[in-house]
């Protein structure tokens, strides 16, 4: 049975300026342990889908099932890595940020620092535990977000363009590490991006969305390539071209 099932999900925002349909009839099932990338142009509704799955916002059509149960709100079973750096706690150092979920669960100081230290090293931040968010680079902050989500041991990880604001080299390095961490932990991941290469490099399946408003799932492309992936290989390029054609049609509609 699929871990997550989005069935005909829709979201219409209602405000003073009338109503705005952000997502329409979105259906997708996520299997346990898979790495699914959601790809789409800016404003097509990617974050909105994630917000509904995370439980931050209610659906206005359809339903979302997690383990067969409708999602009713945010919970520790779905870890989220946010699009910006706002979500880090400026008054806590790197280690205590990572340990935050453990603290909420009532774990003692010693135990949670030890466990957080493990995840700190997992994301390659050994030696940076005492630094506060203001003293960390953009890439380091995203690593902390990832480690913080992982430390709480969620069933799945929801990541919203976590590397979108990074330079190309840092991004490639973090992609490699995320791939390695995923292989180690086998978490189910929903990863949002608008970078085709990133999607093909990381995912076991790539979902392509139509452009907004009222974005929906256009196609799902399986990526049956072994890890680590060779980005210049013919097989990689073939999948890249396939996904590119799907996206291109959204950017330049006839």
């Amino acid at each position, binding site marked *: 049975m699929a871990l997550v099932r989005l069935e005909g999900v829709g979201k219409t925002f209602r405000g003073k300026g009338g109503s705005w349909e952000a997502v329409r009839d979105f259906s997708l099932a996520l299997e346990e342990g898979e790495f699914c990338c959601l790809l789409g142009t800016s404003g097509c509704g990617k974050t909105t889908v994630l917000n509904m799955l*995370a*439980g*931050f916002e209610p659906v206005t059509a359809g339903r979302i099932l997690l383990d067969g149960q409708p999602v009713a*709100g*945010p*919970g*520790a079973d*779905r*870890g*989220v890595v*946010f699009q*910006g750096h*706002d*979500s*880090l*706690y*400026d*008054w806590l150092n790197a280690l205590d940020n990572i340990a*935050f*979920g453990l*603290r*909420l*669960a009532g774990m003692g100081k010693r135990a949670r620092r030890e466990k957080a230290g493990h995840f700190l090293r997992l994301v390659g931040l050994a030696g940076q535990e005492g630094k*506060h*968010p*203001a*003293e960390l680079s953009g890439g380091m902050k995203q690593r902390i*977000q990832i480690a*913080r*989500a992982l430390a*709480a041991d*969620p069933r799945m990880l929801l990541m919203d363009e976590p590397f979108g604001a990074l330079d190309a080299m840092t991004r490639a390095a973090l992609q490699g590490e995320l791939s390695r961490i995923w292989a180690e932990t086998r978490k189910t991941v929903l990863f949002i991006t608008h970078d085709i290469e990133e999607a093909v490099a990381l995912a076991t399946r790539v979902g392509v969305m139509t452009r907004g408003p009222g974005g929906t799932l256009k196609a799902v492309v399986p990526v049956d390539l072994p890890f680590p992936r060779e980005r210049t290989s013919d097989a990689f390029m073939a999948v890249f071209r396939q996904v590119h054609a799907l996206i291109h049609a959204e950017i330049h509609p006839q």
Partner: protein
Amino acid sequence: MRNRAETLAGFMLGFALLFLVWHLAAVYLVHSVLFPRPAPVFWRALDLIEDGLLQEQVVASLRRILQGFLLGSAAGIPLGLAIGSFRPVRVLLEPWTEFFRFIPAVAMITVAVIWFGIGEESKVFLIAYTTIFVIIISTAAGVGAVAKDKLRAAQCLGANRWQLFMLVALPATLPFILTGMRLAMANSFVTIVAAELVASNDGLGKMLWDARLFMQVEDIFVALVTLGLLGFATDRAFRLAIRAFAGRFNPTM
């Protein structure tokens, strides 16, 4: 990271310059017994300190400020948190804060004296009054400014409502609360002098008033310089506190 000693040296130099400008102005520009030079004011201050008179006034004023300030903060912080967190509370209390905010404490002196007499109570009331609204407003604004993602991140790490408030909303609001307190402290100085000028038996404001009555110009300047130095010292203390608690939150402080 700026060097402590460097900062201190900078401050000393700044003050030295201030007194130098004062001296030059008194010698070359004004030429009047009504505008003394720094030196006689300094000697007069030493005399007053030796007799224990200056300390007496300082302690009287500071005690009132501290009492009223703590009272106003103790009431203002929870009110600000409530106004910032709960819409019904905001709608209910905003008319109050927005109404009294525009009646300055100085305008309340007369009422305070009628109600509480010229003893301690009226001064403490006025300081608390001037403190509370500034703190309510900055605290409420701070709660409103907590980034949505901070709360959401905690929610999907399993936080309950109480944890959200205590471990996320409150620490994120702290810099705003401290900034409000810093502003309120400056207001307290204004208010205490005005209140003591009008109705008091001691304090720096009373000292100013008496000195004017007896035309002791040096005493007036001693009081003024003391006020400036006290204000500077308390403000430094606040900035240090803000930096210790939340400097990483707001690197411009």
